[in-house]
């Protein structure tokens, strides 16, 4: 059991090394990204600039700077921002994580529930008008840019219909921590949850339907039907159970990517101070320490989610389990 864990760790380290080198390289390839000039201020003389460059170590060779940054990020854990000097990077990421987690967890609940509903309803009535309607809507959901859905949702809930009975409860954009006011937390996140979930409801509904329809063609379902089991029982006890395997592995990967910062656009549109927005802002201000930290964080999540999915897959799928 130890070896696969070690292997995963090695893989994670490799991926993180690769990404950090890429990010570091990209950053120093950008003209004007020189942090010394920004730190020195808008009217600094070249002399002052040179001093700032020296005191921050920007005049050292890049590999040395890279090593120092990694040392500060992972070992000393006191890396600070280039833009808001003195601001520690790690606490900021740790503070942003619950926001992203709140957003993604809530959206995940919605998309799992509705994804299953859509998939099951469509598969159970396959070929019918309901099936076609649901599949069409799912594809529409998959085809909408999430930031646009968010903008339109803001237009409706914040402006056009804000004073109507429908949306008067929607608070202004932003995030209220769960610990501070659970009800506000909930109210503020409902619209972002739905916005983020729409795409995945469509995606999961379609995949689940396809799997269910395929499962219906398997021998064991035919046998079950021949035994006279009810349609509902066949659906829930047999077909759904096997179809959920794909569903679970998809879920793991998507969840990992979203928690890792993939919900960036939703966070930007709804002004949620999560990891995605933190990354986006860091990228906009070219704040290398922040970019480094958030990107490292997100790659950990993606690799971690992959590992969990692999293990869950082996555990859920008897074929894989028996083979080993």
């Amino acid at each position, binding site marked *: 059991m130890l*070896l*696969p864990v070690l*292997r995963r760790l*090695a893989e994670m380290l490799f991926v993180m090394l690769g990404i950090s080198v890429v990010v570091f390289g990209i950053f120093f390839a950008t003209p004007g990204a020189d942090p010394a000039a920004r730190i020195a201020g808008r009217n600094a003389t070249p002399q002052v600039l040179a001093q700032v460059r020296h005191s921050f170590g920007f005049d050292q060779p890049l590999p040395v700077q890279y090593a120092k940054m990694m040392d500060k990020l992972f070992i000393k854990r006191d890396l600070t921002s280039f833009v808001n000097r003195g601001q520690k990077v790690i606490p900021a990421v740790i503070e942003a994580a619950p926001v992203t987690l709140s957003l993604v967890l809530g959206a995940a609940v919605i998309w799992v529930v509705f994804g299953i509903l859509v998939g099951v309803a469509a598969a159970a009535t396959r070929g019918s008008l309901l099936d076609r309607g649901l599949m069409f809507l799912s594809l529409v959901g998959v085809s909408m840019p999430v930031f646009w859905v968010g903008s339109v949702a803001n237009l409706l809930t914040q402006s056009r219909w804000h004073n109507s009975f429908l949306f008067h409860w929607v608070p202004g954009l932003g995030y209220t921590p769960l610990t501070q006011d659970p009800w506000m937390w909930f109210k503020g996140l409902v619209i972002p949850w739905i916005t983020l979930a729409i795409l995945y409801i469509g995606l999961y509904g379609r995949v689940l339907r396809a799997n269910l329809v395929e499962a219906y063609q398997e021998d064991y379902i035919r046998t079950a039907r021949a035994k006279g089991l009810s349609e509902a029982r066949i659906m829930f006890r047999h077909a759904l159970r096997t179809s959920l395997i794909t569903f679970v592995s998809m879920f793991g990967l998507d969840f990992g990517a979203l928690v890792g910062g993939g919900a960036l656009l939703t966070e930007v549109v709804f002004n949620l101070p999560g990891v995605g927005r933190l990354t986006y802002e860091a990228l906009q201000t070219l704040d290398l320490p922040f970019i480094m930290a958030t990107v490292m964080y997100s790659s950990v999540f993606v690799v971690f989610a992959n590992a969990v999915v692999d293990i869950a897959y082996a555990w859920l799928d008897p074929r894989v389990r028996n083979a*080993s």
Partner: protein
Amino acid sequence: MTPPPLLRIETLSKNFRLGSRFRQGGVQILQALKNVSLDVYPGEVLGLVGESGCGKSTLGRCILRLYEIDSGRILFKNRDISRVGQRALRPLRAEMQMVFQDPYASLNPRRRIGDLIAEPLRVHGTLNEAGVQARLLELMELVNLAPDHLRRYPHEFSGGQRQRIGIARGLALSPSLIVADEPVSALDVSVQAQIINLFMDLQEKFGLTYVFIAHDLSVVRQIATRTAVMYLGGIVELGETDAVLHRPAHPYTAALISAVPELTLDEAKPRIMPQGEPPSPINPPPGCRFHTRCPFAQERCRAEIPALAPGADGRAVACHFPLA
């Protein structure tokens, strides 16, 4: 006096590496062939039989250098070809060819039949396009296929027809040696006979030499002049087909024969059933590899590996206590 062998195999060994250093269980060595020696004489049909997994297909592929061998030598027309590079091997391809077991898998589904059969002619490039077309028609006639089939795709043919296509392709370069790797095992019994007849006709017409691999003794009986029986990566018995089938010297050969009703009907022979499952080639038993399943096994069999020793009527048997 015997003519010089067309093909001589000397103490050939082949291992497969399974798994990876980085995965659970680490690397495992599968000994597919161990110290196999064999001569094939011009114009003969050498049957190669054994259970699946005994290494007969591996041997066939090693002969054609589709697999790299670990030790030993392969001499074709007295020339050592066991270490020749792929490029230098190309002229030799014209002289030795293979017919594959699965006529479905061995034909690229996206290419027309004419294209598939002409491939070796074009690659070896001795004929111009008109010559290629003429040769194609000739080959189609040889394997009893209509010329208009050349424009069709593999999926439009039955299994038997596809095997004829495979044979035509193997014959295209007029080789002197053909390794037929279970060419009929995937076919219906009625079709099997037709294909075997085709093989025999072709041999008669062109004086071909076959190494004919089968897991079924009844097939070997129809076509092979000599038969080699393989068990767990080694040859256990080798001799004239009639002698091997009627007076098996190795308990394993006897066991194989017992499993075929039509061979046991004519003469009352002791029915020998091997005990248990074949052992894993990853972890072969010491001593005589058959001892774990042999009803006659004694202490010596567990300790000492029997050599393939020449016996009566030009036969060789690898057994401490041969039956005949």
